[in-house]
């Protein structure tokens, strides 16, 4: 049966901003769905609030809406576009929840829109734990004992019945928000209370704990003819109790006999049929008791997921793409397998390698938060590694994480070791290595960690070999021994550490002995059929299958695992580089190790190497492929860190020379350059110790901004106001390696911060976007909302910004992209930082201007000139585009939500509006920061802000808000004749402001920090706000924008528009120029 012809126009819902639990895997799945359905001739409407996605590129759908993912906006889009069907299964939980809401509100019926991919009944049965468990019991499958409750009393009764430990799971929350394991009455009561609040239906499941059981997942697909296949099995290294997103996972399942696996497979099909997922992919989780083999069904996701993205990358079977085609009526056996071409997609991939996924956490960003791993996901990214054995894949995965740490790093304290092994935490894997090295047995570790002994025995083999290698020494090791070491996945760097030599000499010796990796293909079939898709991984084996072409090729280094400060934006740029260079006739080669991304789709570039981004691994590919150039400026800091070493090894780097990158990062040389160019920068200095730092601070004046010389996403950056704090910071830095010199900058208070992105070809420069930050300077640029075009910057300042940007691009010989951060204080424009590479804001500026900056930049790097593209010297922007950050605080119990120079946001959204207020309001809504249109506003501001709060308060009062304030703030307002109630601070008595927030009596909080004294008070306010879902604004500039947004929401109607409409004029010629280059350059 071919595709359906009764539907023509399909709405695809994306997953919104990157948050913990929902990352770029949904850009990957949504992009695949768009490509597949468009190729099948459907007219596509796409909605996603996240501008940093490939799926929101205007080429992928016919009508692309970057609008908030709320029922209100979805209805407006549906009303306007009148799609025949909506596909909600490729946009994560967000899209599924929206589909349910739209259906329940009667929107789908009103506009005669069908749900395809999953029915409402199926979504509800899979999502509602009670319905799901009943269904499982009906078909005879075992599930953990459980009770669903809606009150605290019922919860207590259930707990008595089942017994501790218990799992608490609120219904319908994202990424397991609010779930956890409780061991006692006290923890239980708190978790139930929070869970009932968090669940949109005020429902919590209380469940028998299967803590410590083995955890498995099956990725299942089914078509409407009821053909069902398992694409991939995944075994979790970390047993039940750790969210699968926080577990090290392995494909395929390693420790199941065929009879057990087939039992699980049968059960999975029973599940997908019982739930009623008629077409598409589902992820089904099982737990198996390790001593008895008892198997229980844990849950199912009736949609593509993080695991299905992993499964797709692990097997070469594109689940989302196939799922989209099944949703429009194809059968599995009608869709060919892209990789083998001759065989159909109706089969079960088999693999002849091992895949290991390792999560990456951002613990260092949230020092106050509890980092114990449980049922609530906390990791912000992940890496995947492919090896011929588990050992090889694990070691490749560990080096892909870029943690810079060594497997055998000494532990903090031996007694601490046991606790760190028993309680799951981000460092547990390292502790296992250490414990094995320190003589713990596999059995004792299995006992402590409940990790399957098979995995531990594999790690024990690695540890043992490391010991042997160390004893043997580098010179004495024969080529057999070298080969063994490399087959175990040990990197040159690790060997160098074992032997206390430098990595270069290890590399030299290894190459002398002719020990080099070969490249094997991921082919879905374990070599049974020929593979036509060069999707490769390295291994120390005999036969090389890479079969490189003789074409002119460019290699693009990706950005590795997502982390705060380096995420989807860079993957977006890398993909664009691949598209743009392909259009120029180059063969494109992508190197990356992040399974969530579009860049690691084998469709994105001509050749894909799924490999760690280290010098050793990249050089092996360079040696194999011999590309004419490498692109390092699109993948964030990860490839930049390799640039010098690669260049030194003779690898041609395209675009801006690495020397310029170095120059921009070297504060001293760069300072001299700015001085020579007569461009102001904040007074600064570099200190090697406390005394020097104090001296510099005394010279330039407080407050000062302190940071280590190497910075990513503002790591370890602080603003200090006095000598004591400065000394404390510098002393702490002394414990870290490589933190010095410490950079000391004058901090510009109450300044406006501006980000500028520019394109340059070495001669000409185009100012792509001048982004005005809504938060004042001092908040990390990634955490600040910003607006295009600038709304409050004076003409003179704009002129200076343009002038400085153009001159800097020329001076640094930028070919490609450049980002400059400026601060404007009292009319003076200061340069804070120059990054001669793609920045986080490139996709946002691209979406706002309609000019795909990364594509243009990639072609510039490959030799084209800016004048060929016909761009204006400064790209025009109309109407208003606001970018707002999204924070993970809800997932990080205990973390402080205050913003500062250290970046904390995981993702971003864009709001588009005819007025700045409307664009801001939309961005806030898209970021789930509720801007109330009525109710009560709590105000508490520091003395510095008090004069300026009056105007805002008056405006809020005019809009009909009730105002409450702390004593000081209320006094100021009252004196200005504004009616306001006084409320206690936390330490002043009760009921205080936190009580009010917790009892839902506050709708908006404006609280600017008062300094260290009231820190805990404010922290309590902010935490309560996070838990209650009340927006808490911590800067006056943001408060002003919020008030504008509220006004816009009250006075303007909801309007939605597609990017294609916004950019129809003006960019057509550019697109032609980008996609149709007559002959490949660089011949």
């Amino acid at each position: 049966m071919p595709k359906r012809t009764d539907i023509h126009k399909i709405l695809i819902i994306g997953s919104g901003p990157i948050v913990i639990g929902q990352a770029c895997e949904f850009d990957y799945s949504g992009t695949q769905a768009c490509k597949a359905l468009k190729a099948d001739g459907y007219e596509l409407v796409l909605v996603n609030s996240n501008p940093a996605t490939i799926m929101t590129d205007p080429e992928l759908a016919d009508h692309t809406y970057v609008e908030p993912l709320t029922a209100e906006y979805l209805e407006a889009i549906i009303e306007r576009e009148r799609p025949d069907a909506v596909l909600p299964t490729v946009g994560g939980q967000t899209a599924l929840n929206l589909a349910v809401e739209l259906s329940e509100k009667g929107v789908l019926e009103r506009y005669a829109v069908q749900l395809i991919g999953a029915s409402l009944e199926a979504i509800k049965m899979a999502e509602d734990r009670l319905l799901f468990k009943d269904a499982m019991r009906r078909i005879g499958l075992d599930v953990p004992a459980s009770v669903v409750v809606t009150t605290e009393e019922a919860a207590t009764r259930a707990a008595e019945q089942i017994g501790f430990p218990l799992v608490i799971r609120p219904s319908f929350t994202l990424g397991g928000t609010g779930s956890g394991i409780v061991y006692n009455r006290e923890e239980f009561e708190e978790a139930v209370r929070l869970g009932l609040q968090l669940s949109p239906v005020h429902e919590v499941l209380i469940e028998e704990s299967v803590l410590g059981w083995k955890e498995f997942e099956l990725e299942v697909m089914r078509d409407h003819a009821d053909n069902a296949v398992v694409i991939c099995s995944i075994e979790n290294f970390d047993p039940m109790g750790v969210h699968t997103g926080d577990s090290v996972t392995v494909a395929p399942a390693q420790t199941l006999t065929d009879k057990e696996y087939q039992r699980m497979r049968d059960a999975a099909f029973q599940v997908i049929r019982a739930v009623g997922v008629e077409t598409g992919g589902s992820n089904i989780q099982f737990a198996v008791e390790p001593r008895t083999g008892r198997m229980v069904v844990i849950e199912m996701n009736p949609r593509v997921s993080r695991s299905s993205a992993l499964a797709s990358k692990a097997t070469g079977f594109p689940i989302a793409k196939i799922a989209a085609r099944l949703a429009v009526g194809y059968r599995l056996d009608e869709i060919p397998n892209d990789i083998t071409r001759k065989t159909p997609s109706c089969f079960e991939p088999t693999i002849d390698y091992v895949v290991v996924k390792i999560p990456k956490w951002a613990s260092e960003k949230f020092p106050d938060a509890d980092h114990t791993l449980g049922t609530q996901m906390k990791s912000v990214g992940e890496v995947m590694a492919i090896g011929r054995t588990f050992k090889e894949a694990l070691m490749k995965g560990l080096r892909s994480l870029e943690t810079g740490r060594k497997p055998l790093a000494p532990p903090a304290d031996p007694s601490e070791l046991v606790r760190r092994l028993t309680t799951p935490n981000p460092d547990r894997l390292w502790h296992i290595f250490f414990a094995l090295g320190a003589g713990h047995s596999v059995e004792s570790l299995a006992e402590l960690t409940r990790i399957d002994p098979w995995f531990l025995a594999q790690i024990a083999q690695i540890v043992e070999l490391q010991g042997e290698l160390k004893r043997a020494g580098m010179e004495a090791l024969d080529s057999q021994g070298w080969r063994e070491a490399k087959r175990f996945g040990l990197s040159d760097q690790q060997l160098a550490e074992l032997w206390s030599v430098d990595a270069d000499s290890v590399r030299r010796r290894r190459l002398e002995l002719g020990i080099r990796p070969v490249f094997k293909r991921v082919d879905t079939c374990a070599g049974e059929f020929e593979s036509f898709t060069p999707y490769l991984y390295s291994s120390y084996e005999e036969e090389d299958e890479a079969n490189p072409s003789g074409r002119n090729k460019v290699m693009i280094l990706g950005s590795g695992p997502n982390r705060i400060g380096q995420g989807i934006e860079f993957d977006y740029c890398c993909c664009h580089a691949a598209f743009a260079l392909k259009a120029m006739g180059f063969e494109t080669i992508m190197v990356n190790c992040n399974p969530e991304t579009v860049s690691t789709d084998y469709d994105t570039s001509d050749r894909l190497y799924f490999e760690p981004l280290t010098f050793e691994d990249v050089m092996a590919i360079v040696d194999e492929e011999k590309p004419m150039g490498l692109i390092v400026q699109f993948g964030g800091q990860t490839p930049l860190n390799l640039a010098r070493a690669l260049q030194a090894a003779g690898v041609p780097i395209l675009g801006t020379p690495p020397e310029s990158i170095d120059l921009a990062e070297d504060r001293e040389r760069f300072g001299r350059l700015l001085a020579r160019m007569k461009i102001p920068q904040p007074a600064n200095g570099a200190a090697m110790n406390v005394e020097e730092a104090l001296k510099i601070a005394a010279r330039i004046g407080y407050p000062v901004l302190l940071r280590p010389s190497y910075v990513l996403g503002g790591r370890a950056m602080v603003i200090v106001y006095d000598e004591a704090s400065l000394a404390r910071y510098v002393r702490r830095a002394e414990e870290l390696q490589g933190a010095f010199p410490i950079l000391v900058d004058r901090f510009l208070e109450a300044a406006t911060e501006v980000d500028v992105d520019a394109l340059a070809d070495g001669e000409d420069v185009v100012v792509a976007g001048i982004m005005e930050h809504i938060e004042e300077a001092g908040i990390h640029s990634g955490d600040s909302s910003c607006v295009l075009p600038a709304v409050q910057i004076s003409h003179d300042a704009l002129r200076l910004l343009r002038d400085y940007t153009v001159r800097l691009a020329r001076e640094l010989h930028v070919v490609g992209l450049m980002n400059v951060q400026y601060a404007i204080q009292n009319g003076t424009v200061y340069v804070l930082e120059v990054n001669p590479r793609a920045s986080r804001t490139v996709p946002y500026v691209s979406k706002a201007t309609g000019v795909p900056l990364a594509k243009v930049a990639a072609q510039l790097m490959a030799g084209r000139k800016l004048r060929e593209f016909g761009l204006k010297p400064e790209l025009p922007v109309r109407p208003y585009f606001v970018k707002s950050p999204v924070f993970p605080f809800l997932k990080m119990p205990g973390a402080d939500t205050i913003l500062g120079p250290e970046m904390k946001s995981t993702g971003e959204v864009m709001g588009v509006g005819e007025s700045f207020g409307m664009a801001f309001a939309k961005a806030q809504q898209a970021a789930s920061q509720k801007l109330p249109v009525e109710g009560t506003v709590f105000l508490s501001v520091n003395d510095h802000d008090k004069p300026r709060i009056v105007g805002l308060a008056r405006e809020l009062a005019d809009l009909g808000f009730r105002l409450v304030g702390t004593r000081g703030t209320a006094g100021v307002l009252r004196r200005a004749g504004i009616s306001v109630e006084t409320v206690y601070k936390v330490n002043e008595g009760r009921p205080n402001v936190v009580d009010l927030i917790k009892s839902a009596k506050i709708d908006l909080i404006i609280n600017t920090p008062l300094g260290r004294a009231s820190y805990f008070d404010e922290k309590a306010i902010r935490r309560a706000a996070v838990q209650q879902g009340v927006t808490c604004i911590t800067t006056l500039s943001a408060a002003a924008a919020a008030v504008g947004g509220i006004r816009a929401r009250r006075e303007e109607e909801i309007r939605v528009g597609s990017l294609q409409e916004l950019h129809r004029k003006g960019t057509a010629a550019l697109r032609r120029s980008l996609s149709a280059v007559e002959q490949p350059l660089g011949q």
Partner: protein
Amino acid sequence: MLALEDGRVFRGRGYGAPGERSGEVVFNTSLWGYQEILTDPSYAGQIVILTYPHIGNYGTNPLDAESARPFAEALVVRELAELASSWRSTEEVSHYLEQFGMPVIAGIDTRALVRHLRQYGAMRGVISTVDLDPLSLVAKAKASPSMIGLDLASRVSTPERYEWNEPSANIYGDTAWKPPTRFHVVAYDYGIKRNILRRLADVGCRVTVVPATTPASDVLAMKPDGVFLSNGPGDPEPVDYAVKAVRELMGRVPIFGICLGHQIIGLALGGKTYKLKFGHHGGNHPVLNLETQKVEITAQNHGFAVDPDSLKLSEVALTHMNLNDQTLEGLRHKTMPLFSVQYHPEASPGPHDAGYLFGHFVKMIEEWKG
């Protein structure tokens, strides 16, 4: 060391029993089920490469053996587990195989070997832990007997007739439910797997297993309700005694054949069989049921196939087709009670999608008996 007849040599590390074995080198792409594979008598005369690199992870146990002992000549793997981790395991793989005298070679680039066989076809090979001279081993491989024309079925078949009544067990070995016995089925043992017998018992058959060479008259004398033709190793053509017996049984009693049994039916119907380049050995082969248009994921293990063009389509309906290479996977007679499949509906190892065929057999018997 492993040497192929075309001169390619692989060096690895020996496990299991020391010694020297020759056979046809084939690869199986199943991710699980190594014990079932090695104990499947259809692998007699073959050196088996398992494409999944980690083998032995969950050890071995008595329930997963498909016959009394391993039948493959030798095993080739990328890595053999030192530690078995499963509550079901009673013995580690290397001990288990050593006990039965099977040599294992580990540590070689099995993917390179598989790709070699894919390109040049299944070929003879020799594994040795004794003779490590490549030239000598290649010569031995060349001198070893070819699969074509070799009757292996009579070698692995039971010497004595026996009864089987035991249904499938769950993974705990419990046979919680014993169906009432309704029919008597005679099963020809050309190398039968236990799970076929269990699956027949599951659908209410009392099974008498007879040696491969049992004449049709002896079978008919037992007055069976149905006859089953089992799987088995090697080339169907030299198993002419079986073809003769099936010709005599056709139309007189309902017949169901699996794998070699299917090929024998093909020959008995006047068709021809041929050798596939490297065969089908794995647990993920998509088979289209041409009568229902549904796809079954199947376990397969065969080096020969029935040529559909050699069958008289006036008499025979083609019922199943392999979607990977469009080879014939199943047939039925249009008038006589007779059907067969090339793949393994009994699974073990492999998916259970085609398990319904045992039910079909019983239904056919019911209809035949009126």
